[in-house]
Each structure stands twice: as C-alpha cells, then as structure tokens.
C-alpha cells in the first residue's frame, strides 16, 4: 500500500470510502468488478491537476464532498419526470426514462420495439449475473481512468440496449436521464449498447435536472459497434445549474462502420465529458464533434482519446466552445495512431470563442503517431469575435447584440451542421438560439 505517500484524503474521498463500505452487498451484482474498481480509486484518489489527463479539471478541488447514493425514485420524483426530454420532441425518439439513475419502465416507451431491438435494466442484468452484460462490462474500451473506476464501483442502474445484426432502427432511442432534485444525491448510471453487424441505430442521451438542486452525476456508457454498423450517438448535457456531471463514453468501432458522436453541453456547474473511442476495424468513417456554450462560473472539460489500432479509418473531430462570464472551457484531445494503423486519416480541430475578458479556454491537442503512412493534423484557436465582421453586419443595420448572435451561431454551426438527423440538428440550433437569448 502506498497510502502513506498520498496527500491527506479530502472530505469527498473519505465520504466515498464510507459510501463504499455502506453500500457493500446492496448494489446489484458484479461484486468482484466493483471491488477491484474501488481499489483503483483508493490507490489513486480523486484525479487532480498533477494527473496529466485531468490537468485542467482538478476533480479533487472541484468535488468538495460526495453526496449519498440517490435512493430509488418515489412517485413524486417520477411524476416530475413526466415532461423530461420534451425539448427534443421534434426528434420523435423512443423515450427511455431514468429518474435519479433508476430505469423507470412505466415512463418509457417499451411497446412495439423494432425487430432485433431489446432494452432492459442494467441493475437487473447485473443482479442476475447476465453473462452477456458482465462479460463486456469494462472491456469494451478498457481504461484505468478513476472516474470510470468510481462508476464501476457504484453503478446502480442504467440500460442495456442490444440491436441485432442487420436491424435498422427506424426511430432514434432517446435516453432521458432526469434528476428529480429531492435531497442532495449522487447518481451512478452505467449503460451498455451492443450494436450488431450492419445494424443502424441512433442513440440520444439527454441529461437534465432541477435547477436549484445539488447533485452529482457519474454516468458511463459502453458502446460496442460491430462491423458495417452505422451508429450515431448524441449526448446533450443540460443539468441543473448547481450540479457536477462526470461522463465517460467507451466506444469500440468495428470495420467498415460509421460512427458519429456529438456532445452538446450548456449546463451543470462542472462537467467532464470523456470520450474513449477505439477504432479496431479498418475502413471506418467517424465524426466526433461537439459544441459547448458556457456562462457564469461554469467549468466544462471535454477529453477525447481516439485510438486507431486498425488502419484506413477516417476520423474528423471538431469541437467548438463559446465562453461568456467567468466560465472555463477545456479541450483535451488525443489522437493515437498505433504502429499497424497505416492510412489513417484523422483531423482534429478545437476552437474557442471568448465573449468576455474573464473567460478562460484551455486547449491541449495531441497526436501520438507510430505509423508512417498516415494523414493526421490538428488545429486549435482561441479568440474573440472578429470586430471587422461585426462591423460589416452592423453597417447593414443589424444591432450589435444580434450581430454577435449571428456570428456565434455561425461559429457553433460548423460543428452542429455535422449532425445528419435534420430534426435533431434543427432542435440543437434552437437550443443555441435559446442560449443566446439568455445573454445579458
């Protein structure tokens, strides 16, 4: 044990140990996985600024305490979830609702599932020791990341989605993660999506919660995409203003597949979105994009690791961050091209737009290339709105605020336009407009 050389444990770390001891035997299944995951946390502690991957998001400092695990939602909490996810109504997705981290079938649309689609509770799968689930858990893209370890140690519920080979879902699946905001609580959800060969699926996650409530979310999703499948995953984070939200996506993509990822983040006090994407089959085309719009004292971190083990994949990463007030935006993106991954074509760009003197953007793009026949590049910019462009718009009669809004929409639009689903794209453009309206 090297506990002696670690700094004094923070209140949050201590509380997590207490919570672990208390929860022992009460959480559904996977006891061995939980135990080793918690050991990983105990050894490392909460990630802090001297851990390179967390350099700009010192979770040890940002996470002042650890909330107690959220109890299962009562009738009142479920009632409040009735309209959750309504902002995405235009997408006409199949709503799958989780309240305070618990899958709620009676709020979810489970009738008339398309052929080849199954949806079930993660808690039940874990409790029954379902090998199809436990065999994959933590193995889709293995990582020793501490946030993922904490998720594994405390995972309560979530959904298991399976799409059989060749099945094409006609409607998007919309996972609604609703935090009802009773007493301060911590929510650990873990989900798994297994998309069969040649299947087609669109998965939307939206995370929302009561504005005034104090809660912590640690959510993780593993997606296994088989060869020739086409998967779109969109995550919309609009949590309550006081919340802390840590999210991890582990996606492994087969050969000749298409994978489109989009992160849209406007709310939560602190957000860490981590993406671990593993290209393990040749000839796949992927778009990994995101737009983040911040104000006040928000802190949002997007951390991406795109690991190309197989060659001849094309990946495009485009991240846009708009920062107002005293907010802080972090982009940490790493593209790894392993030795055998010849003909990889990867381009990453991260752009931050500062709307105030007090906002801060940190960008850290990295390329690690071990193959010699690849095309990889990255670009990062941070700047204010261009005065000459604004003047051109104003000279045509457009008032300053509206001119700025047009330019901000254009800035974010470059990423949002990458979304193929027209209804979702339009909805997010409306989200952008709504955010702009809140600017003073």
């Amino acid at each position, binding site marked *: 044990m090297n506990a002696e050389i670690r700094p004094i444990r923070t209140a949050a770390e201590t509380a997590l140990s207490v919570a672990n001891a208390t929860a022992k035997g009460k959480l559904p299944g996977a006891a061995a996985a939980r135990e080793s995951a918690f050991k990983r946390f105990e050894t490392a502690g909460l990630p802090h600024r001297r851990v390179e991957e967390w350099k700009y998001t010192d979770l040890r400092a940002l996470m002042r305490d650890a909330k107690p695990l959220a109890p299962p939602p009562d009738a009142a909490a479920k009632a409040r979830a009735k309209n959750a996810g309504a902002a995405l109504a235009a997408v006409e997705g199949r709503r799958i609702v989780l309240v305070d981290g618990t899958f709620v079938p009676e709020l979810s649309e489970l009738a008339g599932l398309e052929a080849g689609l199954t949806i079930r509770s993660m808690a039940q799968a874990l409790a029954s020791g379902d090998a199809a689930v436990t065999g994959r858990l933590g193995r889709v893209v293995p990582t020793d990341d501490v946030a993922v370890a904490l998720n594994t140690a405390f995972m309560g519920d979530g959904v298991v989605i399976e799409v059989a080979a060749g099945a094409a879902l006609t409607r998007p699946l919309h996972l609604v993660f609703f935090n009802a905001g009773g007493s301060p609580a911590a929510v650990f959800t873990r989900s798994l999506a297994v998309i069969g060969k040649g299947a087609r699926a669109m998965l939307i996650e939206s995370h929302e919660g009561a504005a005034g409530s104090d809660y912590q979310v640690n959510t993780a999703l593993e997606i296994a995409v088989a060869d020739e499948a086409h998967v779109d995953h969109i995550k919309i984070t609009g949590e309550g203003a006081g919340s802390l939200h840590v999210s991890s996506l582990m996606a492994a993509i087969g050969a000749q597949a298409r994978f489109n990822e989009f992160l849209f983040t406007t709310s939560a006090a602190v957000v860490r979105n981590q993406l671990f994407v593993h290209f393990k089959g040749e000839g796949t085309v992927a778009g990994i994009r995101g737009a983040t719009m911040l104000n006040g004292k928000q802190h949002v971190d997007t951390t991406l690791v795109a690991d190309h083990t197989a060659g001849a994949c094309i990946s495009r990463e485009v991240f846009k961050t708009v920062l107002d007030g005293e907010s802080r935006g972090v982009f940490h993106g790493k593209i790894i091209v392993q030795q055998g991954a010849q003909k990889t074509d990867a381009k990453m760009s991260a752009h931050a737009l500062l709307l105030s003197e007090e906002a801060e953007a940190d960008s850290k793009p990295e390329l690690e290339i071990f193959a010699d026949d690849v095309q990889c590049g990255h670009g990062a910019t941070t700047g204010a709105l261009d*005065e*000459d*462009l604004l*003047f*051109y*718009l*104003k*000279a*045509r*009669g*457009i*008032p*300053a605020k*509206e*001119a700025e809004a*047009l*330019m901000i*929409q*254009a*800035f974010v*639009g*470059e990423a949002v336009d990458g979304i193929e689903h027209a209804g979702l794209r339009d909805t997010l453009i409306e989200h952008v407009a709504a955010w702009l309206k809140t600017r003073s």
Partner: protein
Amino acid sequence: MALLEIKNLHVKVDGKQILNGLNLTVEKGQVAAIMGPNGSGKSTLAHVLAGKSDYEVTEGTVLLNGEDLLALSPDERAAKGMFLAFQYPIEIPGVATMTFLRTALNAQRKKRGEEELSPPEFNRRVFDMAKKLEIDRDMLRRGVNVGFSGGEKKRNEILQMALLEPKLCVLDETDSGLDIDALKVVSDGVNRLRSPERSFVVITHYQRLLDYIVPDVVHVLSRGRIVRTGGKELALELEAQGYAQYQDEMAS
C-alpha cells in the same frame, strides 16, 4: 436640400491625422464623385460615415437629413439610410447570405417602425434583384461572400444596396478588382437605383468607373480635405494629368 452635410471634419486613425477639416455637401438626388490619390483619406471618409469605431473624430460635424450622424451607432445609421459598399467585402462563414439579408432588412424595418416583409415577398425581391445582378441562387445559399470572386463580392454589395434602399450610398472603390464586364453589371445596378430621393458618394481612384456611373459633381480629395470641385469633365482632366498638382499644392 442637402442630404449630407460635412463640416470641418477632422479624423484620426491610430493617432495619425487623416482628415483635416473636410467640408462636403451632397444634395438630395446628387451623384458626387470623390477622387484623390492614395492616402488622401478617401476610405477613411467612407468608414467614418458608416461608423467604424477605430476612427476618432476630433472635430467637425456630419449631418444626414439634418440629423447628427456621428451620434448614432452603425446600425442606427443604416436604419436612417446610410449604406457603405465596402472596398473589401468580408467573408462571413456560417451565416447564409439569405439569412443575413433578411436579418439586416428586418432589423432596419423594425427600427423604422415598419412591418417585417413576409418570407415570400422577401424571397421574390431578393431573387429579382439577384437576377439583374447576375447572382445565381446557389450563391445566396452560401455563407456571406464565402467562395465569391472579387467581382461577385462587389455585385453582392450592390444587391444589398438595392434591397436595403438606402438614402445615401457610399461606394468605396467599388471598381477596384473588377474587369470591364463586371464593372458594367455593377454600374447598371447602381444606375437603376438613381432617383431624386437618393444620393451617392462614389469614391474612386480612377476615372473609368465614372464613364459608367456619370457623376453630377466631382470633388478632389487631397491630404484630408476637398481641394477642388468641378463637373464630370474634372474627372477626365485628372485622368489626363494625374494627381501630382494637388499633392504639390498641398506641399507648397
């Protein structure tokens, strides 16, 4: 009645005096050409009228229709009828030309207390004007000026001018970078907009543009002041003799 009245205008840019007591009156319906050598202050005049912020007015007044133009923000000036056709129109990626035009027109109409145009009426007007200026619809769907050639950008300026129906049109070296065919298209566009209610300030270095947009009056600008005023024949004289004499006059 004078539409534009500039009196004793002094302007500094980056601490350097560019306009030195410029006086200029443009009558309603008049087309006034302003010619002058490089560095005489032509573009500064254009930008000051439009309200660019890094131009510091240290002295003087500018009245548009008797109203203090300098007290207004750029968008307020536009709503009052001021229009600048830029020498170097800017590209705005991500803002579709149609969206830009609609936003601009409706913002101006709103400020003047007028109704917004209905989308079909707006589209009809834009497409009609675009056709006359040989701008195809595909260009209107693109980002403002993005991927446009120099000539297309200038035609797009005239399209905006036609749509916004300003009272005072300031054309800043609209002829620069245009070949003869594009020059004709642009000039025809400008000439269609001439009316007893609308005035033009046509800023140019060369007389060539004035063959197509024939001015009522020609002013010579040198070292930040109008140093000579004459009829359209003055432009021909300048073309033949150059600007040297005006620079010498100032120097002596």
